């Protein structure tokens, strides 16, 4: 694939903005919470602006790696600081920018240990940005872990509902994943015999034998799959989402889980296409089980956040099914779904977070008539629920459509199960909306104020993104095409 070097280091600027924000916050006195929040918001805003610019400025006709920048880092080991974006990573960058910015705004009312919270959030997001743009296996792994380990403190300090248990479980699960990824990376680098961590070099066809690819792909699939909540490694995910504070749930379900799927795509499928082909039936099976399981487990939940947590498991299953089809349409759908689900679930968690902050309950049974007492907040929740169901004109519709078109061709049986399960979940979700938003107002919600304009801004941004890409899916589709068509085209079969 062609590599176009940038005349201005946009990608590094994103990272440096985060690092600068982090340093400024570290040196601000902890009492100046307003300043700290402002710095975080500016930092998030700048990263969002740059990722938006890159999203627009990417040359669709040329394709390939663009805005590349490369510096030797540890020459003796072949490690480079090497960043570039393509049609797969640009949607992820934009998603990260959106969720980061709206997440910071969502937490505007935070009062507990503000300085540490925003410092950790920025550190986490730095890792996520780095991972999506890096083309060096060493850095990909570094960014991967940088984006994981702040989670422990973020959930354990600021969370709720069995937070210490959830934080420990999540951290150990995700780092168990990295315990497979690192050997996978080192294995490939050593086997290539080239002493380089450069992804663009290692992905040349014929670098690895089929058996090496099968082994490495398996390590990557399970390692990143844990983060992508692939069944049966998903159990950390609902627990973690429920326990995390709102912005962390948003970033976590919205962006971090995408890292898992993106890692399978970037490391597993790019480096080990034969391994991908070999393991694809397993991927499809686990993804379908995940979809069905997520739906069934969601039916039993009485806690709103658990409902969303399990719906994330099934939506990430859709991504997995798309990746397993090994077709252009499936890949397009999977990446589109990663973006759409990220925005949708961020909206979901941020509206539930607001409801919880005010009512101090997430139990579906204790809520009711929200649309009367807080119409705006309920409206956001309903949009998120509709997007989760996959209603046309909202972004997830197109994504799921693409995945199922591909899946019906390649894995018809699985596709029937998956679509059936999602239909059941749609009915259930509508019922949840009805119970919480309509009907007679529950006592504890009747007197509560609606969401303030300031706090409505981040939710409104998320809604408009969902609607925009729902009405004009080609904005996203055409971009992903520039990566998926050449990628499928150069596969060895």
């Amino acid at each position, binding site marked *: 694939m062609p590599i176009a070097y940038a005349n201005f280091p946009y990608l590094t600027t994103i990272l440096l903005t985060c690092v600068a924000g982090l340093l400024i916050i570290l040196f601000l006195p902890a009492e100046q919470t307003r300043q700290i929040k402002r710095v975080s918001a500016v930092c998030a805003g700048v990263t969002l602006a740059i990722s938006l610019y890159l999203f627009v400025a990417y040359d669709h006709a040329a394709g390939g790696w663009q805005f590349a920048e490369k510096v030797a*880092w*540890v*020459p*003796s*080991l072949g490690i480079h600081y090497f960043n570039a974006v393509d049609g797969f990573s640009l949607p992820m960058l934009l998603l990260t920018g959106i969720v980061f910015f709206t997440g910071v705004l969502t937490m505007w009312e935070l009062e507990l240990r503000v300085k540490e919270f925003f410092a950790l959030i920025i550190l986490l997001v730095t890792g996520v940005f780095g991972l999506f743009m890096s083309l060096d296996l*060493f850095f990909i*792994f*570094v960014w991967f*872990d*940088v984006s994981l*380990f702040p989670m*422990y*403190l973020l959930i*354990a*300090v600021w969370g709720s509902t069995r937070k*210490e248990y959830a934080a*420990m479980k999540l*951290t*150990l699960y995700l*780092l*168990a994943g990295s*315990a*497979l990824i*690192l*050997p996978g990376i*080192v*294995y490939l*680098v*050593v086997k290539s015999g080239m002493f380089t961590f450069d992804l663009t070099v290692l992905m040349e066809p014929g670098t690895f034998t089929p058996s090496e690819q099968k082994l490495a792909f398996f390590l990557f699939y399970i390692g990143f799959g844990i983060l992508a909540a692939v069944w049966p490694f998903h159990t950390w995910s609902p627990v973690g989402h429920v326990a995390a504070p709102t912005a962390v749930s948003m970033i976590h379900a919205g962006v971090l889980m995408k890292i898992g799927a993106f890692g399978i795509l970037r490391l597993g499928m790019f480096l080990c296409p034969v391994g991908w082909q070999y393991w694809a039936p397993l991927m499809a099976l686990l993804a379908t089980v995940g979809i069905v399981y997520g739906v069934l487990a969601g039916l039993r939940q009485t806690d709103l956040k658990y409902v969303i947590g399990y719906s994330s498991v099934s939506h990430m299953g859709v991504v997995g099914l798309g990746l397993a089809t090994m077709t252009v349409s499936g890949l397009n759908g999977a990446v589109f779904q990663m973006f759409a689900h990220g925005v949708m679930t961020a909206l979901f968690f941020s509206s539930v977070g607001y409801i919880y902050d005010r009512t101090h309950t997430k139990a579906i049974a204790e809520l009711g008539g929200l649309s009367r007492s807080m119409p705006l907040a309920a409206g956001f929740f309903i949009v998120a629920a509709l997007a989760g169901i996959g209603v046309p004109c909202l972004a997830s519709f197109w994504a799921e459509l693409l995945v199922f078109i591909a899946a019906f061709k390649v894995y018809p049986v699985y596709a029937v199960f998956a679509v059936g399960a999602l239909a059941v979940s749609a009915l259930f979700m509508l019922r949840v909306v009805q119970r919480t938003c309509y009907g007679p107002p529950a006592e504890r919600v009747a007197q509560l104020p609606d969401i303030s304009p300031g706090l409505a801004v981040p939710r409104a941004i998320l809604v408009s993104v969902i609607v925009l890409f729902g009405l004009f899916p080609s904005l996203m589709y055409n971009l992903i095409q520039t990566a998926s068509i050449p990628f499928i085209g150069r596969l060895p079969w």
Partner: protein
Amino acid sequence: MVNWMTLSPELFYGLVMTAVFMVLCLVPANPRRDHATALILAAVGLAVTVGATGMRGDLFVDTYRVDLFSQVFKVMLSLGLLLVVLLCSELAGVDEKRHALVYLLLSLCTLAMMMLVSAVNLVTIYVALELSSYCLYVLVFLRKGQARSAQTAIRYFLVGASASAVMLFGLALIYGAARTTSVVALSAALPQLISRPDVLTGLLMVLGGFFFKLALFPFHFWAPDVYEGAANQVAAYIATASKVATVAVLIRIVAMAGDGSLLLVRALAALAIVSMTVGNLTAIVQKDFKRMLAYSTIAHGGYILLGILSMSPEGFSAAVFYAFTVLVLKFSCFFVLAKVATDGANLSIDGLAGLHRRSPLLAMVLMMALFALAGIPPTIGFTGKLFIFTAAMAKGHLVLVLIAMFNVVVSLYYYLLAIKAAYLTEPAKNLPAIRLSVGERLLAGALVAVTVCAGIFPAPLLDLAEAAVRTVI
């Protein structure tokens, strides 16, 4: 004719420092004066050692070699001594009358370890090892007012003496087969002899002596008791400088055997696996911070062994790099420990509660050190592990690396418990803030900076380690 300049570090520690502290032992005690003297001398010692890195030479009938390898380790040793002396500003765990004695023994022990890393004759190695061990036995004994420390010291001594006996027996076996005690001559002879059972047994027995120092399975069980029973500063010295010296000799001895023996590699691999697993699993249930660190040291010994058993220049230099890593990180932990437990008492993990309020800086030092020990990037701990795993993988030890990685995940659990105590748990009663002097603040900042910067820019250190290792093989 011996060029005495090549021996300047040894001469400095052997003559100047020991002489000064012998005098200070005799005159009436004055802890402040003793500490200031020790600080200045240790700093000068570091400068002398750094100045001597360029020295080369074979001395004393080729039993003593000064090369880049030995000099790099001597720098690490004198750095370790300086750091530990910095911690001694509140040496509350030892009777004031004996502070000068502590410094005397610390310098003597550092001297012994310098001799150890330069020794290229099995007899010299043995003598140097014993000298350093005896210093440590006494140091452990010196803790104030605890019958426990005497008991610990005696146990330490007995285990150490048994390890020495095993080692001597091994030396005899090797000498019997190869008819030489020179490491250089052995490097030529051993690769042919290594398949013989008596030679392999002998070599493993010799290594046993060093496994004792490195606290590797099955010679590990002294470590938790000694860490717990010794004064905090002494435990810090054992956990840092003493480990570094051992890594150096292990590399020399294993390099001597060449990579011809599959059995040797398998034996080392088994020991590495058991050490990692036993160390990490036992560390989980520890309540005392020092005991936890002791078990984590056992596990880290296993990681280092993984680099050494790769028997390649990459593996050896990764082990050297990792030795430096352990030095920095373990010292960071002990620095926090010594500052939190200013009365010189032991510290339970729960005793870290509320640290983020009492001293945000110390809490950060602790968090960075523990995350680095758990191998989280972008810290030096991750980079060190990456080098070791790459070297092991290059020799085809995929399964070993996977086991090591899962051990890393297990270890994360108990490191997180300590981080949780420091950042989340609120103490039962309100504890006062911890005051740090300007120097201590700088030291804390420097430790965090080294932990991160050496992780992000490892190239200069790694190149130095590689250059050093090339002089051995």
